[in-house]
């Protein structure tokens, strides 16, 4: 079951990501992103992060994607020119070394990390909730996150606001 869910959601993620990168049409890419994000959520569940999977679905699929679709509406039709030739050079430049780097990084990590099978993961909601409010744990990040969101909110509102004065 675990194996199946990994392969299924992993496949969703991989295909979604590929399509995001390669789809010529923006709308298609956006929906591919949704697919990939759902895949990631599935992988989270497979990794025992049930709460996280939920958050991923809610925030990403439900929130961020909406934002993007809003953005897509700004785009004039046919504005996304795209051809393989124009992508090849920067793509190769960017991707190949990165692949090598990440491969090496993983090879190194593989030799170090000792997988510990701590059994089937337990539901995490409770622990996460406590963690957020525990002085010794994630209280400060939690509070700071609120500030970030406030700043982001205020900032985006300011930026998106049409000028009243003009």
């Amino acid at each position: 079951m675990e194996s199946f869910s990994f392969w299924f959601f992993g496949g969703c993620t991989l295909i979604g990501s590929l399509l995001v990168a390669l789809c010529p049409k923006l709308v298609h890419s956006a929906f591919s992103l949704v697919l990939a994000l759902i895949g990631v959520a599935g992988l989270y569940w497979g990794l025992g992060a049930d709460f996280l999977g939920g958050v991923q679905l809610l925030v990403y699929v439900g929130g961020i994607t909406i934002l993007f679709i809003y953005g897509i509406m700004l785009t004039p039709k046919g504005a996304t020119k795209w051809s393989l030739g124009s992508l090849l050079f920067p793509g190769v430049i960017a991707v190949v070394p990165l692949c090598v780097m990440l491969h090496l990084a993983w090879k190194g990590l593989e030799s170090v990390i000792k997988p510990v099978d701590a059994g089937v993961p337990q539901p995490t909601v409770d622990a996460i909730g406590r963690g957020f409010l525990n002085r010794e744990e994630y209280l400060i990040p939690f509070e700071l996150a609120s500030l970030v969101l406030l700043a982001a909110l205020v900032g985006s509102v300011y930026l998106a606001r049409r000028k009243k004065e003009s």
Partner: protein
Amino acid sequence: MDFFDDATPAWYALAILLLPAAGFCWNAFTYRTEFTRKRGHIVPLLTIGTALFCALTIFKHAVIDGDVGDTPHAASATHDAPAHDSGGADAPPAAGSLADPRWSWSSKAHGVVYRIIDTGALRIDAGITIDHLTATMLLVVTLVAFLVHLYSVSYMHGDKRFSRFFAFLQLFSFSMLGLILTDNLLLLFCFWELVGVCSYFLIGFWFEQDEPPKASMKAFMTNRFGDVGFLIGILLVYRMFGTTDLAEIYAGLQAVAEGRAALPPLFGWEAGTLLTVAGLCLFTGPMAKSAQVPLHIWLPDAMAGPTPVSALIHAATMVAAGVYMVGRIYFFFTPTALAFIAGIGTVTALVAATIGLVHNNIKKVLAYSTCSQLGYMMLSLGVGGYSAGLFHLYTHAFFKACLFLGAGSVIHAVHTEDMREMGGLKSKLPVTYRTMLIATMALGGVPFFSGAFSKEMIVEHALMWGWSHGLAHMLPAIVAIGGGGLTFFYMMRLIYLTFYGAPRDQHKFEHAHESPPAMTIPLMVLAFLSFFSVGWPMPFLGGHKLPELLAAPPALASIALGHGADHGHGGFALAFGVLVLSCLVIVFGYRLYKQTYKDRNPGPEVWVARLRPLHTTVSNLYYFDEFYRATIVRFSYATARVLALFDSKVIDAIVNGVGTVGQLIAAGFAAFDRIVVDGLVNLNGTVCHALGSRLRRLQTGNLQDYLAFAVGGMAFVTLLFLFLA
């Protein structure tokens, strides 16, 4: 009380030295006052007159009275012979101690010392040395200087820089007297250069004209060449003996000669080479100052200065300073060095005399004559005729000064220096004519005139030297003898062209008139001195001739190298032979003159035509000037220009470029691009800017380029990491 028992002579000497300096200062600082501008000659005349008096006093006590009871300086404690007994010239030194047997008095022994510098290693205690040579030189210089001062009062009358002329004369007198009085080689060098500067300013006195500034610069530069050699010589001497004090150098060399010390090894040379090289380096100074070939070129040009200057500086005193200096450090010269000196003197005597034959400028003929006579002196010193050379200096000073002043008088009368525009002036300028004739006789070496004595001594020594050294070494003697004829010929030619025959420029002839007494009196005094010679045994010299008192020091360098003093006095027979020979030569010279100029059978033009190539060469002064111009001068200018270009284009650029790290990076960055090297500093086209602008191309403004760069950057850093790890 004996004059030389205490410090009194030092005060006299200081008076001699400093009075002219004070006169210079007076004239220099008051030159704006009415008094100095109009009567600028009074103070100088007073000072130089007083100096003359003091010099006479010293001369009287040192030479005439022989008040020399005081023990000499330095290592001469063993020596107690009275000065007069130093006797025959060039006597071989006593065996054993090589202390200088000659009498000398040093002010240091009496506490009159001026410590001019002391670095802990080099210490210069300036003192005053008086010996017979000094006393004689003092007298010559002060006397000629006084007469020239007097002469100039009239000659320079009305010149707008009248007072300044006297100021420089004073400064010159100061320097020249200092040169004579000092007992330190480095200080001698100082005064040496100072007289050069005075000469420079006096040659260039009429600087508005075209010629004098050039001539003055030429004089100074030529001398500078010699001086640098001199300086290197001093450096070598200091390196060898650790001192520049003449007495200490003497003592040092004495120790070497007596085998008590050894010279420091330098350059791996042995002592002989070292001493010879040092001696020759030192000699380059006199070579330039005394106008020896090939550094003689400045002297004829120096005639561009006022004539009294020519008389004082370029005939009587300064140019003779070289000879004096060689005499002063005579003990230092090795036989090789002396032979070189003799050679140079010979060449100079000959070359200058031949040029004198053809020149038409009255002063230049005299200048070449001076040159030639200085050659004689050097020749004499070189062949071991120490006293002969210095005595010739003494006699020459008077008759040559007389000739120059006479020439000045002529020029004053006819306002030209070209003898082709003169002629027949005998009647118009009787005093000048007569005095000049006497001086000519003296210069020509006509017996019983002063010049004859010194010249014959020279010839005698040259013959002796040639005899003892082999046939090839007879050349100096031959030149010395033959030169006498040439000298007499060209001098008679001068007299003829100036005073005899018909006036060739009627206008000038008519306006000519005899000079005022201020000019003629010095002429007469000098003429008297040209005739009256202390070459005779003089009663007031205790029955000695003056040259006998100018005894040579022990030839320390020769002794140190194992040579003895190898020639002695020639004896009466030789002297008589020489006298006869000289007379014959003079007669020959006179015949030649008479035939060519008086009888015009054949006239000079014919000779010129016959000897065309030779005449061309000689009248072009043997192309010395051209040679120097084509080599040294051109080379210097070319070097200067090339280096200046190099400096501005290359050094600047390289330093600017390399100085920034930019250059290094640029090599990699812009291998295919023009490498601009004018550096960081220039606003455009610097390496850094080239680099900078190349960097700017990265800063495209396109966001995605930046992103790609950043990703590439990560790869780059990774590579860097893998490489460095």
